[in-house]
C-alpha cells in the first residue's frame, strides 16, 4: 500500500468553484414530475419526456416491446397522422428522436424556445391517444428487425455482449437485449405494444425535463395546460423486477466469428448501483474504474499492459452506476498479435493482483479528482447532455438531491475506500469472462 506517501506529495490541486445550472422541480396533480434546467445563452430548448419503463420491465417472452413501442410512438394519434409528429417538428426547424434503455424510454425535441407550447401539445397528445394500424405495426417491425441487423447481427462484438449479459444475470431481466431477441421480435404484435403502452405511458409514470432558454413559471403554466389534463394509470405498481440470487459459480464464454479481426478478452462482475441516499459504494467503483482504465497512458491497466509489458494494444475498465438494479463492473484487454488470449487473461489477472498489492497511486488519484471537478465546468457548456444525465438518474431510482450530491461523494472517496471496493468487487463467482476470436484460434476458454 502506498497510503503513507500521500502525505509527502504536494500536488497542485486546484480549487474550482462548485457551479451548477439553475434547476427547478415540481410535480403536477396527476403525478407527472417536472424538472427545468435553465441556460439562457441561446434561444434553444430541449423538451424531453422520460418514462419510467424500459426493456427490463417487459413481459416474459416479449423482448424488444419497449423499444418497438418507442418506434410506434411516431405513428399517429387521434389528432395526428402517422409521421406528422416529426414532420411538424422539422417544419418548425427542430429535430426530434427517442431512445430506449433497460430502465427508461425517452422522447426529445430540440427546437427554438418559442415552440415549446407546440412540442408539449404534441407530446401530451401521444402520451394517451396513440393510434396505430396493423399495417403501421407490420412495416415498423421490419424496421426494428433491420435495426437489429445493423446494430447487432452485423457486429460480432455486439452479438457477444448480448451473450455476456445473458450469462451475467441469472434471474434479472437485464439479461435480455434492449432491442430484443430476434425470434421474439418477429412475433411482437399490435396488441403487445398497445397493452404495454396503456399501462406505462401515463403522467404518473413520466418525468418532463425542459432544458434551455426557459423560465420555470412558463414551463409550469404550459405543463399544467398540456400534461395536466391527462389521466394517470391507476394502481401503477412499484417497479419490482426479479432480483439476482446469490451468484456462486464463475461463468466462462468463448465466441468465434469469422468477422472478428482483433481477438480480445472481457470480464464483467455483478456490481452494486447508485441507490438513493446510498451512493458511496457506487462512487468507490466509479473511482476504481477511472484508476484502472480511465486513460491508456496513465491508468493502471494501460501503464502495466500497454506501456510496461507491451502485451496489450488497448485496455479499459468500465462501470455503469446509474441503474435501477444491480449493474456491472468490467475489464477489457485487446492483446498484441503475438499474445494468446490465455496469456492475455493471465496478464490481466496479474495486473489486477499487482494493483491489489501496490494500492492506489496518490498522484493519479488526485489527477482523477481534478478532472472530475473540471468536468462540472465543461459540462455546463452542454445543457442537453446535462438534461440527459438527470433523466437517466431520475428514471433509475435517484432523486435530484442524489444527483446534486454525487460530485461531492466522488470527491470524498479515499484511497482506502477504493481498495476496499476492489477487494469486494473482484469475486470470480460473480463474474463472466469472455473470449472473442476468429474461428482459427484454437485455445478456447477453459
Amino acid at each position, binding site marked *: 500500500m502506498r497510503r503513507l506517501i500521500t502525505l509527502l506529495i504536494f*500536488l*497542485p490541486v*486546484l480549487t*474550482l468553484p462548485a457551479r451548477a445550472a439553475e434547476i427547478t422541480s415540481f410535480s403536477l396533480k396527476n403525478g407527472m414530475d417536472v424538472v427545468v434546467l435553465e441556460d439562457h*445563452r*441561446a*434561444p*434553444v430548448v430541449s423538451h424531453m419526456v422520460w418514462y419510467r419503463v424500459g426493456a427490463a420491465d417487459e413481459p416474459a417472452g416479449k423482448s424488444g416491446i419497449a423499444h418497438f413501442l418507442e418506434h410506434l410512438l*411516431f405513428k399517429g394519434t387521434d389528432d395526428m397522422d402517422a409521421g406528422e409528429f*416529426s*414532420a411538424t417538428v*422539422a*417544419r*418548425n*426547424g427542430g*429535430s426530434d428522436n427517442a431512445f430506449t434503455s433497460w430502465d427508461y424510454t425517452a422522447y426529445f425535441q*430540440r427546437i*427554438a424556445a418559442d415552440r415549446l407550447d407546440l412540442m408539449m401539445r404534441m407530446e401530451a397528445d401521444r402520451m394517451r391517444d396513440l393510434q396505430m394500424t396493423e399495417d403501421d405495426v407490420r*412495416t*415498423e*417491425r*421490419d*424496421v*426494428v*428487425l*433491420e435495426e437489429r*441487423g*445493423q*446494430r447487432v*447481427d*452485423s457486429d460480432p462484438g455486439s452479438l457477444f455482449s448480448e451473450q455476456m449479459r445473458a450469462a451475467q444475470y441469472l434471474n434479472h431481466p437485464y439479461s435480455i437485449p434492449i432491442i430484443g431477441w430476434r425470434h421474439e421480435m418477429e412475433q411482437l404484435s399490435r396488441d403487445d405494444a398497445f397493452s404495454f403502452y396503456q399501462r406505462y405511458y401515463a403522467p404518473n409514470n413520466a418525468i418532463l425535463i425542459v432544458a434551455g432558454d426557459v423560465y420555470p413559471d412558463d414551463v409550469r403554466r404550459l405543463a399544467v395546460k398540456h400534461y395536466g389534463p391527462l389521466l394517470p394509470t391507476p394502481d401503477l405498481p412499484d417497479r419490482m423486477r426479479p432480483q439476482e440470487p446469490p451468484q456462486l459459480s464463475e461463468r466462462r464464454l468463448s465466441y468465434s466469428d*469469422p*468477422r*472478428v*479481426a*482483433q481477438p480480445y478478452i472481457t470480464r464483467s462482475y455483478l456490481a452494486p448501483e447508485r441507490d438513493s441516499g446510498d451512493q458511496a459504494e457506487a462512487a468507490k467503483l466509479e473511482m476504481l474504474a477511472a484508476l484502472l482504465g480511465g*486513460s*491508456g*497512458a*496513465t491508468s493502471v491497466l494501460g*501503464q502495466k499492459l*500497454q*506501456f510496461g509489458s507491451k502485451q496489450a*494494444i*488497448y485496455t479499459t475498465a468500465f462501470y455503469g452506476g446509474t441503474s435501477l438494479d444491480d449493474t456491472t463492473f468490467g475489464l477489457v484487454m*485487446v492483446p498484441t*498479435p503475438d499474445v494468446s488470449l490465455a496469456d492475455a487473461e493471465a496478464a490481466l489477472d496479474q495486473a489486477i493482483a499487482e494493483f491489489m498489492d501496490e494500492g492506489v497511486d496518490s*498522484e*493519479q488519484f488526485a*489527477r*482523477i479528482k*481534478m478532472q472530475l*471537478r*473540471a*468536468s462540472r*465546468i*465543461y459540462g*455546463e*457548456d*452542454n445543457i442537453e447532455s446535462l438534461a440527459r444525465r438527470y433523466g437517466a438518474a431520475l428514471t433509475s431510482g435517484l432523486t435530484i438531491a442524489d444527483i446534486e450530491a454525487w460530485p461531492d461523494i466522488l470527491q470524498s472517496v479515499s484511497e482506502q475506500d477504493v481498495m476496499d471496493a476492489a477487494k469486494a468487487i473482484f469475486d470470480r463467482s460473480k463474474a463472466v469472462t469472455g473470449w472473442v476470436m476468429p474461428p482459427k484460434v484454437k485455445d478456447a476458454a477453459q
Partner: protein
Amino acid sequence: MNRFFAVVFLIVASTAPLHAAVEVQEVTSPGGIKAWLVEEHSIPFVALELRFRGGSALDAPGKRGAINLMTGLLEEGAAGLNAQEFSQAREELATSFSYRVHDDTLSISARFLTENRAAAVDLLRTSIMSPTFTQTAIDRVRGQVLSGIRGDLTDPSSIAGKNFDAMVWGDHPYGSDRSGTEASVNGLTRDDILDAYDRVFGLDRIYVSAVGDISADELGALMDVLLGDLPESGAPSVARAAYKLTGGVTVIPFDTPQSVALFGHKGITRDDPDFMPAYILNEVFGGGGFESRLMQEVREKRGLTYGIGTYLAPMEYGELILGQVRSDNSRMAESIDVIRAEWAKIASTGLTAKELEDAKTFLTGAYALRFDGNAPIARIMVGMQMTGLPVDYLRTRNDQVNAVTLEQINRVAARIYQPEELHFVVVGQPDGLESSN
C-alpha cells in the same frame, strides 16, 4: 492597445424563427496569425480549434499512412516528456487535446480552464512544436493502427468504403484509406514520420478559432506563443483527382446477414454557384431526419432499412454525391430499385413547391441549433474560414437559403442527379444482385 484588428459583427439571423446571436471578432495576432473569436465569459473555459489545410492526402508516394500515424504520435511524448508524462500533465490541468486527420485537414481541438490557461497552452505547444516521435512510441501506436486496419478488413462498411473510393479515385490518395495498408504501415520509419510532420504543419495553411472566456488581446498573445514558431509552409497541394467510375453495381461477397450498400456519383464543388440549391435538394432527398424522400420510401413505407442517408461531399480535390443503406440480404435488391427510381424521379421532376418551402423552414430554423456550445461554434467558424466564407455568412446564410427558387432547384436537380451514372457497391450476400460488367 491597437495591436489587433478586431472587427466586430453582430450577427442576427433575420428571417428564421430563431436568432443566432453570435458575435464574431476577426483577430490578428501581433505575429500576424489570424483567428475568429467569440467571447463567452459565462463559463470559465475556452474551446480552441486549429485546422491545417491538407491532411492525409499529402502523404508522400509509397508512404501511405505516414501522416495518419504521425498524427497519432503528437500526444505520445514531446519536449522532454514521454507519453505517460505528457498525459499526466494534461490530466493535472484537466485540459483536453484531440488530434485528428482527414483527407484534406489535420485538426486539433483543445479546451482548457481559465485558471490554468497559460500552462495548458504551453503543454499543447510542445505537442505541436516539439513532438519527440520516439521509436518506442512509433511502434506502440503502429500496433494500434495495424489493429484498426485488420478490423476494417472484416467490417462490411469499411469494405464498401475502401472499394468505392478505389473505384472512384484510382491512384489518387483519395483512392486509398488514410490509415494505409498493413504493408505500407509496417514499412514506415521514423524519418517518414518526420517527413509527414513537415508536410502538414505550416503557417501558410492554418485556420484558428476560439470560443469562450478569453479576450481578443489574450487570444492574439496565445496564438503567437502556441503557433508563432511554426515553419512558413508545408508540402505543396496535390493534383485534382479524376473521377473514374461509371454507372452500375459491384457486389463484394461477404458472409453477413445484412448487406451494406454505398452509392453515388460525381458531385458539386463547394464554390459552385449551384451549391446552395444542391444542398437543399440533398436535404429533401436524403438528408438527416425522417422527412427525406429516401427515408419515407425505403424505411417508412416499406420497412426495408433502419436508416438511409445521402450527403454532398465537396472535397479539396474532387467531389461526390454519396449515400449509404443497409438492408437484409433478401431485401437489398428491392432497396436499390427504390433508390434508383427516386434518383430518376428527382432528376426529371425536381421538388414540389411544398417540399422546397418545408426544407427552407427546416434549414433556416435548424441553423441556430448548431451553435450550441463553445466547441461546436469553434468548429463551425474554422470550417467557414477553410471554405472561404465571410464572417457575415452567419447573417446572410438563411437569406441565401430563402432566395433559392423552385426553377433553380429543378434546373440543378437535372444537372446533379444522373441516374445512369449511379453506382452501387454492395457488401454482403444480396439475393438477386450481381455485379454489372
